[in-house]
């Protein structure tokens, strides 16, 4: 399993640039079928700008069910958990209805 400590690769989860950094770090492993654990220890919160660049684009490449199977999240606070879960679900549904 690949463990990604978010705080060790970005200062915060606020900007599109920070989001793209995390996206680049996890995409390859997920595509290769590996489990990825994302550790949010010490992260205050996650903006939608970050979310739109770090996680939403995964849905353009991988099925949502596969992402759910392989991507684990630890040490995330309530805001991060809700933002991640709800926005991924909403975007996956939008893609599904657009298909």
């Amino acid at each position, binding site marked *: 399993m690949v463990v990604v400590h978010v705080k060790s690769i970005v200062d*915060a989860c*606020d*900007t*599109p640039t920070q*989001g793209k950094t995390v996206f680049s770090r996890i995409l390859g492993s997920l595509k290769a079928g590996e489990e990825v654990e994302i550790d*949010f220890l010490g992260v*205050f*919160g*996650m*903006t*939608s*700008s970050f*979310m*739109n*660049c770090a996680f*939403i684009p995964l849905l353009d490449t991988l099925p949502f069910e596969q992402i*759910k199977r392989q991507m*684990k*999240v*630890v*040490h*995330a*606070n*309530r*805001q*991060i*958990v809700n*933002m*991640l*879960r709800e*926005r*991924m679900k*909403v*975007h996956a549904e*939008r893609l599904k209805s657009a298909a």
Partner: protein
Amino acid sequence: MKTKIYLPSQFRAPNLFRSVSQQLLGSAELPRRVEFDFTRLRFVRPSGVVFLSNVTRHLRHNGCEVAYVGTNTHMECIRFLDDSQFFLQHSGELLRAHSRPRATTVPLIEISNEAALLWIENKLISWLSTSSGIPVRDLSELGTCIKELFNNISDHTDAESGSIFAQWYPNEREIRISLADLGPGIPTTARRVGSASGVTDAKAIQLAFEDGFTAKSQPNNQGVGLHYLKQIVVANLNGRLEIHSGTAEVKIQKAGTEPKFTLYEQRGFCPGTLIDIVFHTDKIERSPQEPEVFEW
């Protein structure tokens, strides 16, 4: 040409929006000098402080000289404004040498979008946590909302900064945060979307709060930021939002179980956008110290 504007006794954004802005900004040509007279001022809210700050910046940006008169430091509201660093920001000096920011406020600051993201965590949220006794982890939603607004300034405007002022009312356990920018305004940006072209300013603001509505100023925009603000402040915290932009005033408050929009058209004029956030901190849900268990 010189214009003298008597500020209303109730120093709140809606009052300034209707009276001051209409007198000043509704006309085709700005005066060369504007004097704001504080003599009638009695009561100050954060939205009034940020509104006048934004109008002052707008006027100066357009070559207009701005002066403040009637700033009697025996008046409590003037001392409050001075402690809030309003005069320091706009006249370059305090009215009273010993003025200091009050513990119940985060003084007026104009801050770059980039610096704001760190400032929100290190200053604003830290201050609110100390004031209210609410742990920082439970203020993450609020902090993220404010970050969303600064990210919106970055994404949708040419403005490189925003102005913000916050006040904590300990007796009511209420927080008020006002934030403004001098971008093109939400209605102008929203009308770039085909489905919104031609709608009124107030309707455009309402559309901008819909989940998924985006002008796509940046390729990664998904139309989440303002919707998230509404969900957190109005739906979750039973608070209210007041937005002034262009000629519109929009209030969002819960009616029953759903956020309800009240739209006012052509009430005044606001350069850029001003958003006022109000809620009771008792409504903030407390979470256990252990991190959340994530399940899809």
